[in-house]
Structures are given as structure tokens and as C-alpha cells.
């Protein structure tokens, strides 16, 4: 079943087509990777899906409903959460407050305080941040801030999770842990759409990969198909 489907999604910044006529879809339970050179329009596509910016044209169906033009909070309530490439945490608040908020207002909404607290500790442990509850969020290192973003997004109880470069800045061991985390999330029933430049990770976990270049979809397929795609090799992988 298609949980997300975009048709003719277009976004212009002035004359620059950040995404040009992209068609894509995500199936329930999948992990789909999104790759492409820097500036290809990947983050822009995420921004369009999550409602951060208004598209120039196109439709985006989420669970059979066109979510285009909805506000981010409405999209979130429908079960779609995301993380940000440049982390956007509530920097002066504590780690646990960051998550509590998402519990209170996310898809499930109206969670009771004690339940939310329990959920928050559970999520922190899940992403490997246990023991940091009382730490001020901006004092975490960038890698840990990203994990916190994941936890926060999960706290809204999403059915589809958009991850924007979760693995950037992690060393190989940590990348392996993060990969593990992504698989765990999927195991719990959340579909994942992720942008990544770390090949080892994305090739390892994705069921399917979409490659963008200059805002256009240039290729789509299984990891094996993508690694052997001539254009992708040339413009992106450099092999």
C-alpha cells in the first residue's frame, strides 16, 4: 500500500528549480533512501512533504489524502514526522522537555504527563541517550542532538518518518549503531524515508533508493541497481 505519493512536485526559488516535476511513492513499511549531489533538492523535497514550504505545483498524497497546503502541525497530526538537516531543537530546554512536548502535541495528543514521562525515558534509551534527561539540549554534541531529534520525531507517533542526514558526522561504529536504530524503528511499524550521503549506511538499510539531480529524479531502484547506475556513479559516487 502506498503511504506517500507525490506527483509533479515542483518548487522554484526565483528562477532556480530546486525540485522539478518529481514523481515518487513510498510503500507502507518500506525504508526508502534519497540520494543526490549537494544541492540536488533533497531537503527541499522533505520540506515540501512536511509542509515547511509551499510548493509551486504538484500533489502529495499521504494515506490517500492530499496533504499539500496543510500546515506542518496538521501534517504531523496525521502521522508524518521529520528531522532536520540543520538541527532545530528547543536548545535551551532540557532533553526530556523536548520529547515531552512532542508527546503532548503529536499525533496521539493529549497524553497524560506521567505517561509522557515514561515514554520519554523509553525513547531516550531507544536512541541511545539514556541518562541525558536533564541536560540542556544545545549542550549536546551535534551527533547527539540528531539522535534527540529522532526521539522527538518518534514521540509524535508517526507512521512515516523523514530523516534528513541522520548519519552525517558519525564515525563508522556510530554509523552502524544508527543503522541499527533505523531498522529498529521500522520494526516497530514506522515507514522511513531518509536522505543520506553515507553510502554504506543507506545501501545497507534501504529497500529502494531514489536519486535526485538538479531537482529531477534521475534514477530509482534497489541499492544494487543504483550502485550500478551509470549516471549515479558518475555524478554522485565518483567511481
Amino acid at each position, binding site marked *: 500500500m502506498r503511504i506517500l505519493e507525490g506527483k509533479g512536485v515542483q518548487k522554484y526559488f526565483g528562477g532556480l528549480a530546486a525540485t522539478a516535476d518529481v514523481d515518487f511513492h513510498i510503500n507502507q513499511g518500506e525504508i526508502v533512501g534519497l540520494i543526490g549531489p*549537494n544541492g540536488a533538492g533533497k531537503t527541499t523535497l522533505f520540506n515540501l512533504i512536511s509542509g515547511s514550504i509551499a510548493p509551486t505545483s504538484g500533489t502529495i498524497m499521504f494515506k490517500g489524502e492530499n496533504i499539500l497546503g496543510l500546515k506542518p502541525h496538521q501534517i504531523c497530526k496525521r502521522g508524518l514526522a521529520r528531522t532536520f538537516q540543520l538541527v532545530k531543537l528547543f536548545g535551551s530546554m532540557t532533553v526530556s522537555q523536548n520529547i515531552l512536548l512532542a508527546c503532548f502535541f503529536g499525533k496521539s495528543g493529549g497524553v497524560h504527563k506521567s505517561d509522557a514521562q515514561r515514554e520519554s525515558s523509553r525513547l531516550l534509551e531507544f536512541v541511545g541517550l539514556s541518562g541525558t534527561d536533564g541536560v540542556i539540549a544545545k549542550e549536546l554534541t551535534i551527533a547527539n542532538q540528531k539522535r534527540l531529534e529522532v526521539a522527538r520525531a518518534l514521540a509524535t507517533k508517526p507512521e512515516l518518518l523523514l530523516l534528513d542526514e541522520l548519519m552525517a*558526522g558519525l*564515525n*563508522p561504529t556510530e554509523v552502524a549503531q544508527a543503522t541499527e536504530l533505523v531498522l529498529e524503528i521500522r520494526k516497530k511499524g514506522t515507514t522511513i524515508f531518509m536522505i543520506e*550521503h553515507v*553510502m554504506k549506511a543507506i545501501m545497507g538499510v534501504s529497500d529502494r533508493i531514489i536519486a535526485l539531480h538538479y531537482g529531477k529524479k534521475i534514477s530509482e531502484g534497489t541499492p544494487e541497481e543504483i550502485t550500478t547506475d551509470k549516471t549515479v556513479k558518475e555524478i*554522485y559516487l565518483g567511481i
Partner: protein
Amino acid sequence: MLKVSNIKASYGKVDVLWDVSMIIGEGEIVALVGANASGKTTMLKTISGLIHPGAGTLEFLGKRIDEISPYRIATMGISHIPEGGKPFPDMTVLENLEMGAYINEAWKRKEETLHRVYQFFPILKKRSGQLARTLSGGERQMLAMGRGLMAKPRLFMFDEPSYGLAPIIVKELFESIRLLHDQGMTILIVEQNIRHALEVSSRGYVLENGRIVLEGESRGLLDNDHVRKAYLGL
């Protein structure tokens, strides 16, 4: 060239570095690696003067730099490319690059350096009139590199330069670092991409929880069991 002796550093009450010593010789590439939150960024900030060390000394070209302001350290020839690039968001790409050449000697030759930087990162030339705040993640990183180059520094310090870059660019990046080295530049590189970092460098330090736990020839570190297990995921 740079001598770090028994440095201690902290943010307010939280101590981050304890008794760290490092040496970087003229013309060397040295890698500083370690897990998340081990204090690598803090080390670089201490060297460039953004954080004053609680104890220990820093010497650059034989002069003490642990008590002077960051701008004077920059003027002495240390170029620190901060984590995330930190471009000036409301300036254009070109203006950002020009800011890189702010110190006197660099300013005089900025046209020529700019030309070289554009050769290095052609995309910057394409985006030269765009405000830095609207750049994509990778473009920012390249801008930061370019801006650092503009200063024509004696010592180049990278904080995770490959962060968020497409694989092909990462490859080119490390090639260009090697190129810089060949041209005689001294480089201190902090990387999560440990394999690349140790391959490009001649010596390396491993930082864990604010302490240097290992140091030596890069080649040797790559073969070190601890490093392989903890950082290379092998």
C-alpha cells in the same frame, strides 16, 4: 609549529578536556579522531582562542597564544574552519569568501586566491551571488572550506570537513587536502570519517572522554585493534 601542552578546558562548570598535549610539526597533516562528544571541537576552539584553557599552554611558531584574543591568533596564521561551516548567513557567497581574506596579507592577494578557490569548488562560483543562508548543506561546507583557504593560513584546522558532503565530493575533498599538503600547508584535521582521515594524515591522536588515549603514525593507528573496534566498526 603548534605545541599544545597539558591543556584543560571547560564550559562553565563542565570540564571537557583534561591534560591534553599535542604537537604539530611544520608541513605535517595530523588527524585528531575520537567518538562523539570526546572534545575534538573543543580542542580546536581552544587552539583558535574561542575558549580560554583552564590550565596548560599553547605555543604557535614559538609564541604563547593561550592568553590572546581569537582575532590575533587568526592574524598569526591559524585558520579554523568551524563545525558546520558557519557561513555568514546574510552575506553572499562571494562576500563570505572575501571575509576569509580579511587579514592584511591575504587581502592583498585575494583576487588570485579567489580564482584558485573557484577552481577547487566550481559550484561556489555558480552560487557567488546567492545568500549563504539559502545554500544546501553541502554547499555550505564547501563555502566554509573556500573561506578558510582565502586566509592563506600557516596552519589549517578542519572540523569535520566531510560533514554532509556527497561521496564524490568527499573524495575530491580529501584529494584537495592532500594537494594542500603537497604545497606545504600544515593541517590539523578532525574527522568522523576516520579511515579517510588516517589515510590522508601522517600522524594521529585519538581522543576519548577528553583525554588522549592513543597517538602515533596514522598507518599504525589504522591497524590498532582498539581503533578498529571502536571507530571503524570492524
